């Protein structure tokens, strides 16, 4: 992440909160998830800290361990998530504010679940009933 500490904070934080509010309104009205790429903006470290502090801490936090750690947590605003993706070296590759019922990275995929089901069947001593084809 670049160092933009020499920039002011307040105006950018307010602008980002307004953009997040627009995304929230869009989700509430139309069910469309949205996100803001914070790494792509010239934000200082202090600006990011101020933004994170203003959004507060919510009820949910999760870590996804694949190709490095991804951490997502709900802010004090329901449905507004603070998500940080890091690679295997710990470098942050994406920092997002997400608006969604559940962040996409947490959702289990049906194909992955199908592979999981095969593994699950292999774990038991019983022969589980297979679904009718």
């Amino acid at each position, binding site marked *: 992440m*670049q160092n933009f500490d020499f*920039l002011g904070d307040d105006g950018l934080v307010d602008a980002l909160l307004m953009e997040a509010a627009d995304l929230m309104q869009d989700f509430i009205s139309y069910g469309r998830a949205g996100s803001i790429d914070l*790494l792509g903006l010239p934000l200082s470290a202090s600006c990011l800290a101020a933004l994170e502090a203003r959004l507060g801490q919510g009820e949910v936090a999760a870590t996804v361990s*694949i190709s490095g750690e991804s951490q997502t947590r709900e802010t004090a605003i329901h449905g507004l998530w603070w998500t940080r*993706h890091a690679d295997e070296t710990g470098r942050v590759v994406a920092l997002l504010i997400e608006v969604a019922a559940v962040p996409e990275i947490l959702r289990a995929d049906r*194909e992955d679940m199908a*592979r999981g089901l095969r593994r699950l069947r292999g774990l038991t001593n019983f022969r589980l009933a297979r679904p009718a084809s």
Partner: protein
Amino acid sequence: MLGKSGFSRRGLLKFSIAMTASLALPPGVASAMAANLAQARRQSVIWLSFQECTGCLETLLRTSSPTIAALIFDYISLDYQEALMSAAGSAAELTLRQAVAANRGKYLLAIDGSVPVADGGVYSLTGGQANVSMLQQFAPDAAAILAIGTCAAYGGIPKAYPNPTGAVGVEDVITNKPIVNIPGCPPVPEVLSGVLVYFVSFGRLPDLDDRKRPLAYFGTTIHDQCYRRPFYDQGKFAKSFDDEGARQGWCLFELGCKGPTTHNACASLKWNDNTSFPIESGHGCLGCSEPDFWDQEGGFYTSLAGGKGPGWEDTGIAAAGGIAVGAAAAFAARHKTAKPPQGPQK
């Protein structure tokens, strides 16, 4: 394919999120990119090496994350690359002909090295065929051409004065195909990865600047993204490579840094597992991703201002103006590129 590669959808989505951030695409595009990658056929890539030093190939082999590199290689089929393939001689030539025949109109033609055209191109041959002749033979059936490295993009070091081989870039020979230039000596590996993933995902090249470079990576200068930029704005310049200013990490402008006129992603993506880039190692940018960088007036150690930096009396103006211009430029460049792809071009 995902199951075989050991990647779950979450892994592919995370990869896509990182790539969309890298390509300055809206983050919402990541889901579509992941879905497209999950369905994608392996993209045929035919890589021809011309008048070059193999540094560009070395850079591709040193992408920062082995897992990501492995994923990329699941999505491309590197059908011909002389330094990496085991076949040689007539077997290699047969492989090339077969790859072209099997992927006619669909393959990406990757070129590293400049194209010598003097004296009928006799200064660089492969299997007895001049590079310029090979380029003219294989370009028409390509979906697009990737000119990898400054040599392939603009002629590079072989083109340096007096240019005895008549070296030129790919775009000087081929004018009727989509071409993306990925300059750098060598180029940043993640830029090549990003362009490949974009093409595999969306079937088209990413948005380019007026020099056919991917805008997402070349839309800003090294200077705009440099962590030493605040020192430039404050008028703090190192006067030699071992003075107090250099030890304090001050701006290297007066030591010849070409960051202000060089477009590349070194300052943001960095090198060697995100360790550093030349300026972070204490040396000014050479401007290696710009045309004719080797012959630039004054050489590598003369400042762009002609031997001295901005006057100290202008420090206050530079500080105020520089902050505003730098921030606006960085912001504008990111948003200029931030439009979703418009569907396949193939």
